[in-house]
């Protein structure tokens, strides 16, 4: 549905099935960014002239829109970053290094993307803290008993809402509740969830929530860090420089209040304006409609892939699953499969999906990953299936 809103694919035969990597952008978002640069652009917070005031207003409105979108309590809990990776690094440096000490434990799921994993390795190594992983069962879900790894020693739990490899949805509310009982804080990676399901921060109650704009129909170059006010208030800045200060003397400086303290330098206001428009666009379509359509398309994909006995899939057997299917064509390296799919105008990802520890644990070297959006159609899936048959033909001839 709504494919006509997306200029890049509306009149093209491309089956764009790499939405977990980045989504295409609707015309209204592209127009909003253009309008910003055509009519509004100035450096926010600095000028005393009308344009700068207008740019500041856009930035402020966007922040409030993000707050409302994820139902956070206050807009000063919303920090704009370059991307999700920068947001995780901000938490690791400004919270992790200050609050994790020798002998403490950091618990993370084995399915974390490198961006919510490698920063915690840095903290663990700098502070001599232990990393503990929550492993998955045969259904790619975290074992119930694994949760006992969250103990009084745990300071941080890093968990993704939706796996970017299997599409499995984690029971984040339960994990947050458990972590809070043990006195730990939770860093929630909502990157793969935010375009598919309504995020209600006050219900989930995670301490930090991170997502990027570009996977939810907004431009590249903007990420969001939500942090609880009482935590952010007590954190040191991550990046130092202009716009994040109060007074600067020759030897030292005092820092601005939230949220500017964490937004040093000129922000990507154009992308932030685009993000705000993408939120309006998503809400206009409605998450109920998005979930219904995408789930149906995912179910169709599963049924079609089941008919291909040469395809091996890696997704949960229940409905605890959003938008992503990883698979392999038996005997064919994922890179070859995706390369052949490309020659049929089918765009999918192949490799380890920035989740090397997870793939290693699953005993896989690489997978092909297809990931859907509401603008995909059954025709896109059918094109992929035709191309997969071709993959099998090409390789089948030479297998001895």
């Amino acid at each position: 549905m709504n494919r006509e809103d997306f200029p890049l694919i509306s009149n093209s035969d491309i089956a764009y099935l790499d939405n977990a990597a980045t989504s295409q952008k609707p015309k209204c978002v592209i127009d909003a960014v253009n309008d910003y640069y055509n009519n509004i652009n100035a450096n926010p917070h600095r000028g005393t002239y009308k344009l700068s005031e207008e740019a500041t207003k856009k930035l402020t409105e966007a922040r409030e829109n993000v707050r409302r979108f994820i139902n956070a309590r206050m807009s000063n809990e919303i920090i704009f970053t370059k991307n999700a990776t920068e947001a995780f690094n901000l938490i690791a440096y400004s919270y992790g290094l200050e609050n994790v000490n020798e002998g403490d434990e950091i618990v993370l799921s084995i399915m974390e993307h490198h961006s919510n994993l490698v920063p915690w390795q840095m903290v663990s190594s700098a502070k001599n803290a232990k990393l503990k992983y929550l492993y998955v069962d045969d259904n790619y879900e975290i074992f119930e008993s694994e949760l006992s790894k969250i103990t009084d020693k745990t300071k941080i739990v890093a968990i993704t809402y939706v796996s970017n490899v299997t599409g499995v949805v984690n029971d984040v509310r339960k994990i947050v509740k458990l972590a809070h009982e043990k006195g730990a804080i939770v860093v929630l990676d909502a990157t793969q969830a935010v375009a598919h399901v309504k995020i209600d921060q006050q219900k989930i109650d995670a301490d930090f929530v991170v997502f990027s704009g570009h996977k939810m129909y907004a431009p590249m170059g903007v990420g969001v860090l939500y942090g609880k006010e009482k935590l952010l208030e007590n954190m040191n800045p991550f990046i130092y420089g202009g716009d994040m200060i109060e007074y600067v003397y020759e030897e030292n400086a005092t820092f601005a209040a939230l949220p500017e303290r964490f937004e040093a330098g000129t922000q990507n206001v154009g992308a932030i304006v685009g993000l705000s428009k993408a939120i309006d666009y998503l809400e206009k379509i409605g998450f109920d409609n998005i979930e219904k359509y995408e789930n149906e398309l995912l179910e169709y994909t599963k049924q079609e892939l089941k008919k291909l006995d040469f395809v091996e899939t890696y997704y949960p057997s229940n409905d605890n699953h959003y938008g992503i299917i990883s698979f392999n064509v038996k005997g064919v390296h994922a890179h070859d499969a995706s390369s052949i799919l490309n020659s049929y105008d089918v765009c999918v990802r192949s490799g380890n999906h920035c989740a090397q520890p997870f793939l290693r644990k699953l005993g896989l070297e690489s997978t092909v990953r297809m990931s859907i959006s509401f603008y995909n159609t059954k025709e896109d899936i059918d094109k992929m299936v035709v191309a997969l048959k071709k993959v099998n033909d090409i390789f089948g001839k030479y297998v001895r």
Partner: protein
Amino acid sequence: MEELDIYNELVMEHALNSRNKKELEHFDSCELGHNPNCGDEIKIELKLSEDKKRIEEMSFTGHGCAVSQASASIMIDTLRGKTLEEAKEIILIYLKMIRREEITKEEEVKLQDAVAFKNISNMPARVKCALLAWHTLESMIK
């Protein structure tokens, strides 16, 4: 469908049924090549002649796509029996070809079957696959 040309009989036979994919009983050096983007990993084993001037035998093991597997296998066929100096020269010709630089007819002959990867430069995402084994060997004999 020009991209499918790379999956020709020569490349596929080397990719799926290579006799160079094995471990050597005795070798002088061995090196692991890794492409972190796609997870491809290739181990090259190299056995030199007694005077250490000539490649007597080579083999590869590991996992990767058809392009990386076949380019390793074909490299071994091309360079087996060559002196280290000749091998270095051929590696440079191969790298030039992949970078789309002009190579002479004479140079092309020296590449033997490795010429099969000439058009890989039209597939930027696969260039690294075609280079993995060659870069690995280059660092072993430089």
